[in-house]
């Protein structure tokens, strides 16, 4: 446990040292979402209708953008193999990187989302559910993304392959995330969608570390 926390601390401190890498996904999220009212329509009713989808798609893409900075450099500098050689299990590495990734990228999105919601004229109920659904959904994206990163380590043009591999697995999270927010904005019951997001999160936390660890060992070989 202490090993895991020291790994997480190191991951976070490394990423925070290079400001561009952790500010970029958040800036991407804010810029993309705030351009929609300008580009599509300034009409408040239509915006509130579009908001759940836009917020979720932007959040998903910004998580996708952030994955690279946690793995690629570590792989190229030989840090990953040194961790394995120091007896750290592959599963622990994946957990540490995913948790750090969520703290650095996912959590800021959850916090910023209500501001974007206000921009889109969402009511407080829908805003609250948007936060909740991102809170449950973004860690799932980080863990799934880790598997994809581990598979594409060291490949040229790994980014394209990563997107192809990971996006289909992101879709269920996207569907249930947006439908929870849509349900909330039409005053319907949204518990079911949130429960499924929670179940997806538990499932990925259980399985992703092992899948990622196996993929990492193949990539390092």
């Amino acid at each position, binding site marked *: 446990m202490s090993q895991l926390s020291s790994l997480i601390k*190191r991951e976070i401190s*490394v990423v925070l040292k290079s400001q561009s890498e952790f500010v970029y996904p958040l800036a991407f999220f804010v810029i993309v979402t705030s351009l929609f009212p300008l580009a599509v329509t300034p009409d408040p009713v239509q915006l509130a209708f579009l908001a759940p989808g836009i917020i979720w798609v932007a959040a998903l893409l910004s998580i996708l953008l952030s994955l690279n900075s946690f793995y690629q450099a570590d792989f*190229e500098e*030989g*840090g990953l*193999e040194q961790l394995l050689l120091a007896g750290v299990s592959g599963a622990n590495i994946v957990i540490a990187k995913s948790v750090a990734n969520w703290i650095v990228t996912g959590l800021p999105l959850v916090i910023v989302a209500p501001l974007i919601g206000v921009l889109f004229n969402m009511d407080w109920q829908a805003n609250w559910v948007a936060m909740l659904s991102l809170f449950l959904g973004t860690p799932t994206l980080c863990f799934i993304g880790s598997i994809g990163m581990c598979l594409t380590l060291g490949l040229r043009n790994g980014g394209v392959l990563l997107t192809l591999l990971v996006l289909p697995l992101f879709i269920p999270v996207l569907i249930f995330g947006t439908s929870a927010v849509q349900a909330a904005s039409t005053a319907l019951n949204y518990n079911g969608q949130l429960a499924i997001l929670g179940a997806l999160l538990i499932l990925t936390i259980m399985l992703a570390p092992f899948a990622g660890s196996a993929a990492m060992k193949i990539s390092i070989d």
Partner: protein
Amino acid sequence: MIKESSNSLKVENLSVFRSELPLFEAISFELNAGDAIQIGGTNGSGKTSFLRCLCDLSRRYEGNIWWNNDDISEHAESYYAQILYIGHSLGLKPKLTVQQNLSFYQELRFDKNELVIEKALNQLKIGAYFDEMVGNLSAGQKRRVALARILCEPVDLWILDEPMVALDREGQSWLENACNRHLDSGGMIVLTSHQAIEGINGLKMLELQDANLDIPQLVGEN
């Protein structure tokens, strides 16, 4: 002072493969406490690939590697507690300071001890860079930082890939002395180099022989 140590590393009929072809003719050797071996060979002869197999990072080999009579991939945990591998990629984070890098690795397996790190850096004449970011150091200084780990993490088996590269004369003789002290206290060393290393006592030589000499080269044929 000879430490009580009965460790042994045995390599039996090992050949390493790259895309189905063996890189070199099968090799066998045995190291006991206090032994060191230098793996030599031309560029591309498979020195680094061999070391990666020895670290169980790569499984593209046939043959057996035994550590204290246990197969290394089956007993990776006890094996990994005893080895230190320094390869071409040094595993240092450029954005962290020298001290942060070294104490992170130290803490993974041993108790945190900044004094040891400071002493090691002073021995390597880079004590002044204790709080400097690794990214700002020169290639030789980075290698010195990585080599400082051999003093900070007391393990039995050192696996060093081209440790002399980028080091100046002074650094090289420091490394040779450090190796001798390690061997005297019952340690073991496997290192690769294509240059002769004279300063390490009792260093055995093993030259990798290309396994594909008999296979006609396709290049240049009409």
